[in-house]
C-alpha cells in the first residue's frame, strides 16, 4: 500500500529528526540561549578558580608571583594579541557566511583555528620555560590552575572550530543556515574575553 512509502519518503525528504515543530515562545533561538547558559556556568567554574586565587593571593597575602619567580608578561601579552585577533577572524567568518562568501567563511574559520593553535603552543612553551611547577607552591598551583583551565577551554573551542571548519569545507552553511558557525563563535569569543580577565589578574596586576 502507498502508506508505508509515504511515511518513509517523508523521513528521507529532509533532515528533520527532531520532535514535531514546537511553538516559538521567545524571539531568542534555542541554540543561542543554550550556549549562553552554558557560558554562564563556565563563568562560574572560572569563578571557583578565581575564588581560590583570591584566597591565596588576597586573603593569604602570598607573594605574587612567588618569591624568586617571574612571569613572562610580554610573551603572554603577545599571546593575548594573537587570541584577540582570532576573535576578529571568527567574526569575519560569520559575516562571510551570512553574505554567502564561501571563501571568506572558510578562510576565516581556518585562520581562527590556526591562531588558536598558535596560542596553545605559545602557552605550552611558556609552561616549559616559566621555571616553576604546580607542585612547588600555591602560587604555582593557581597559576597553572587558571591558565590550564583556560587552556582546556581553548582546546574545547578548537574542537568546535575544527568541526565547523570541516563542515564549511564540505559545503555546509549559507546565508540562511549558519548556526554551526555562529554558536561555536560565541563560545570562542567567551574564551577570548575570559583570557583577558585571566591575563589581567595573573600577569598584569
Amino acid at each position, binding site marked *: 500500500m502507498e502508506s*508505508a512509502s509515504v511515511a518513509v519518503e*517523508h523521513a528521507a525528504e529532509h533532515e528533520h529528526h527532531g*520532535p514535531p515543530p514546537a511553538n516559538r*515562545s521567545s524571539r531568542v533561538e534555542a541554540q543561542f540561549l*543554550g550556549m549562553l547558559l552554558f557560558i*554562564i556556568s563556565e563563568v562560574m567554574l572560572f569563578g571557583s578558580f578565581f575564588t581560590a586565587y583570591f584566597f591565596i593571593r588576597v586573603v593569604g597575602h602570598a607573594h605574587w608571583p612567588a618569591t624568586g619567580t617571574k612571569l613572562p608578561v610580554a610573551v603572554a601579552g603577545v599571546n593575548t594579541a594573537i587570541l584577540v585577533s582570532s576573535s576578529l577572524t571568527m567574526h569575519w567568518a560569520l559575516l562571510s557566511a551570512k553574505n554567502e562568501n564561501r571563501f571568506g567563511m572558510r578562510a576565516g574559520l581556518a585562520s581562527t583555528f590556526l591562531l588558536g593553535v598558535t596560542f596553545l603552543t605559545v602557552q605550552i612553551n611558556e609552561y616549559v620555560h616559566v621555571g616553576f611547577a604546580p607542585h612547588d*607552591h*600555591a602560587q604555582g598551583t593557581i597559576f597553572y590552575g587558571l591558565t590550564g583551565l583556560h587552556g582546556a577551554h581553548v582546546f574545547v573551542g578548537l574542537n568546535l572550530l575544527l568541526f565547523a571548519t570541516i563542515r564549511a569545507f564540505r559545503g555546509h552553511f549559507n546565508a540562511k543556515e549558519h548556526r554551526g558557525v555562529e554558536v561555536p563563535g560565541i563560545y570562542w569569543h567567551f574564551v577570548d574575553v575570559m583570557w583577558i580577565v585571566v591575563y589581567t589578574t595573573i600577569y598584569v596586576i
Partner: protein
Amino acid sequence: MTMAARLKAPGWYRAALGLIIGFGVGMGIDVGLRALYGWHPLVDWTAIVTVGLISSPFGFLIGIGCFDYWFRWASGAPTVPEDHSGHGARSWRDYFRVNTDHKVIGLQYICTTFFFFVVGGVMAMVMRAELAAPGTQFISPNTFNGLFSVHASLMIFLFIIPVFAGIANYVIPLMIGAPDMAFPRLNALSYWLLPIGGIIMLLSFLAPGGSFSTGWTAYAPLSTHMPLGQTFFNIAIQFAGASSIATALNFLVTIITMRAPGMTFWRMPLLVWANFTTSLLVVIATPFIAGSQFFVLFDRTLGTHFFDPSRSGDVLMYQHVFWFYSHPAVYIMMLPGFGIVSEVISTHARKPIFGYRMMAFSLMAIVVLGFTVWAHHMFVSGMFPWLRVPMMLTTMLIAVPTGIKIFSWLATLWRGVIHLRTPLLFALGFITMFTLGGISGIMLAVIPFDIHVSDTYFVVAHIHYVLFGGSVFTIFAGIYHWFPKMTGRMYDETLGRIHFWLSFVFFNLTFGPMHLVGIDGMPRRVADYAHQYATLNAIISISAFIFGLSFLVFVYNIVASWRHGPLAEGNRRRADRGRRPIRVRGAGSGARGVQGEGTGGRRVRSHGRHDRMSAQPHRILVVANETVGGRALIETVKRRAEEAHERGEPFEVTVICPQNEPRSGYVIYEDSVRKAAENRLATTLGQLREVGIEADGEVMDPDPYSATMDAIATYGADEIIISTHPGTRSGWLRRDLIDRVREDSGLPVEHLVVDLDADRAHMTRTLVVANQTVGGGPLIELLKRKGTEGPHNFVVILPQGEGGEHGDAEARLAHTLDLLHGAGLEAVGQVMDPDPFTAVQNALQFYPADEIVVSTFPDERSGWLRSHLIERIKASTSKPVEHVVVTAEQAREGATA
C-alpha cells in the same frame, strides 16, 4: 546479528567494548606520560585507576551511542535519524538504550534514582544496626565512615537531585505544551552521565583502603590525605554534576523558548516555575562543587597545594567554595518539591493555588537569597568573624519566602473541597515535617545555638526533617499523583495510605529523638557513642527498621499496580489523561446529540448495535483525528460499505477519534479537548448517516497507537482505515503510526490521506468566536447569509469567562445553536479556554476551518479589541478573518430571542 555487527551498532556490546578501550586509552596516556617524564614506577595503579575513571566512562558513552549523531554532524556527514520523539519506547528494552523521548528519559531517571535510593537506604539500615547499641556490633569504624559518606552522597547526588529532574522531564513539556525538550539528544546524554556517577561511588568500596569516608562534604585537608576511595568521589561528582547542569540548561531553554501560545510566564503551573528557578540555581551554582572537587583531585594526584598552608594554600577556601554550591543545593533539592506540592494541593483541594504570583516571586527570592547564606555552615570553622552575623541575618531572611509558601498552601486548602488521597496525605505530611525542619534550621542559624549543636545529631535530625520529611515526601506525593498518567494504571489507594501512615509515624520516631540526643551532645558521624544515649538510640534504630520496611509497601504497590492495576479512569483528575474512552451516541440525534452533556466517565451505547444482524459482520475500524469528517474519508467508508454489501456481508463501522494533544494554551483544559473531539466525531457520524451508514463512534486516548490497539481489542476489526493529513502536516505520520499498527495488529491497514484544504470546494467551514455577543442579531444574520451562499458548516466557540460562569456560557451556546439549527444550518459548538486567542488557536487545531468570524462589542466596550485580538488572530493564520460588531442592546435582545 553477527558479533561484528553488534560491536558496530550502538548498544550494550559496543558499550562494553568502549569501556575496555576507554580504560586502555587512559592507561596508555598515564603510562606514556610517566615514561615521558621518566617517573617511577612506570605502572602506578593508583594513577591508572584515576585516569581510567575518567576515560572509561567516555568509552562507555560513545559505545552506548550517546555521541553517534554528533560525530556524524561534526564530520559534516549526513546525519542519521535516531529520533524517538513521539513513539518513545515500544518494549522495556527501549529503556536500556539511548532514547531521546522526554517521557522515556523521565522514567529512566526515576527508575535509576530509585535504585540508588534503595542502595542508600540499605546502607542506612546497616548504620542503624551498628548504632542500635553502644560499642562495636558488626562493622569497623572505617566501614561505618564509608557507609555514612556513600549513603549521604547517593541520597543527595543520585537520588533527590536527579529524581526531580526525572519527574520534571516527564511532566514539564506536557505542562507547557511543548512536543519534547529543546535538546533531546543532550537530554539523553544527561541521563546516561548519571548512573556513571552512582556506579563510581559504589565501586569505591572496592578501592584499597575502602570507600571514601569523609562524608558527603569531603572537607579538605582530610579529603586530600585519604586513600584512593576519595578519588572515586571526586570523579563521580563531576559526572553527576555535568548531568545536572546539562538537564538544567535544557529545562531553561525549553521553558523559555517552547511554551505554547497563550502560555505566558504568569500562566505557567507552579511546578514549571519551580523547575525554572531550580535550573537557574543548578546552572549558576553547580560549577562551584565541580571546582572544589577539581582542587581536591589535583592536590591528591598532581601534588598541587590548593589547601596546604605551609605552601601558601588556604584550607578554609574549600568550605567556602563547597558551601557556595551546597547551600543553594539544598534549594535545588527542595524547590521542585515545592512545585509538586503546589500541584498536588491545588488538585486535591479543587482550588487554584492561593497567591499564585507571590508563590512565583518567593521562588525567585529564594534563588537570589540562596547565594548569600553559605557561611552559616561555617560558624565554628574559624572563618572571618565579621561574616558570621550577616550570614545569620540573611539565613533568617530566607525563611520569609519559605514561610510565604507554607501559608499559601494552607490558604489553598482552606475551604477547599479536600480529597484526602495518598498524594495529598504525603503533601500534608510534607508541610508539617518541612515546617519542623525549617524551625530547627532557624535555630541552627542562631550563632550561639549552632556552636552548641555543631556536629551533633541535632544536625542529622535537621537534615532528615528537611530532606526526608521534606523532599522525599514530595517525591512520593508526585509519584502517586502522576502514576496514573505515567503508567495508565491506578495504584492501590489502601496500600498508599498504609505506606503514608507507616512512613509518617516511624519517620518521626526515627528522627525526632535525634534532636534530643543531639542537644545532649551526641556527635554525628561516629560509629560508637556513650552509654547515656543508649535507650534513645535503641528506639531510633527499631523505628528506622520499621520505617525502612514501610518502603517495601511502596515498592509492592508500584510494581503490582504497574503490572496489573486497574486502568486509570478518564478525567478523574485534571492531570491524568484518561485511558478509558467515552462513547458518543452514534445515531439518532445528530450533531446536537452530544451538546451540553457532561464529559465524565459516561458510556452511551449506540442502539444500532443491539439489533444487529446475526451473521458475523465485516468490521471496519476507522481511525481519524482532525481529518475526521473529511470528504475523502466519508467516501472511502461508503465505498467499503458498498463492497461489503455486494459480497452479501453485513458490516459494522466504528469510528474512533483519539483526542488531540492541544498545541496551545494551558494544557489542563482537558474538557475542551474532549469536547472538540466529541463534536468532530458527532459531525462525522452525522455525515455517514447522510450517506446511509449507521456507525458507532468513540473518543479515545490521545496516543493514536494505543487508542487503535485498544479499539481493536474492544470491538474487534477485520480491516482498519487510518486517515491523516498529507505527510508534512501529519503528526501521526511522523510517529510511523501506520507501520506500527500494521505490524502489531496483523490486519490490513489502509492509509487515507485527507487534504482538508481540498475539501473546501464542497463545503465552507466557518469558525465563529464570540462570548457575550454570541446570540446577537448582526452575527446570526451574517451566519444565515453565509448559509444561503452554499453548503456551510459552523463551529461556534465561546471562550469561557473568568470565574464561575461556565454554566452561563453553556446556556448561551445552546441557545445560539438552537437559533442556527432553527434556520436549517449545520452547527456545533463548545465552550473553551478563557483566553480568546488560545481558544482560537486550539479550535483551529481541533476543527478544520476555512474562515474565521469574530464577534465583539463595539470598540470602547470590548476587552478583546483592547487586547488586539483581531490583529493577533490575523497574524497567526492565513485564513480570512471577519469582524462583526454587536452592541450591548442587540446582544441582550439576542439572548431572549
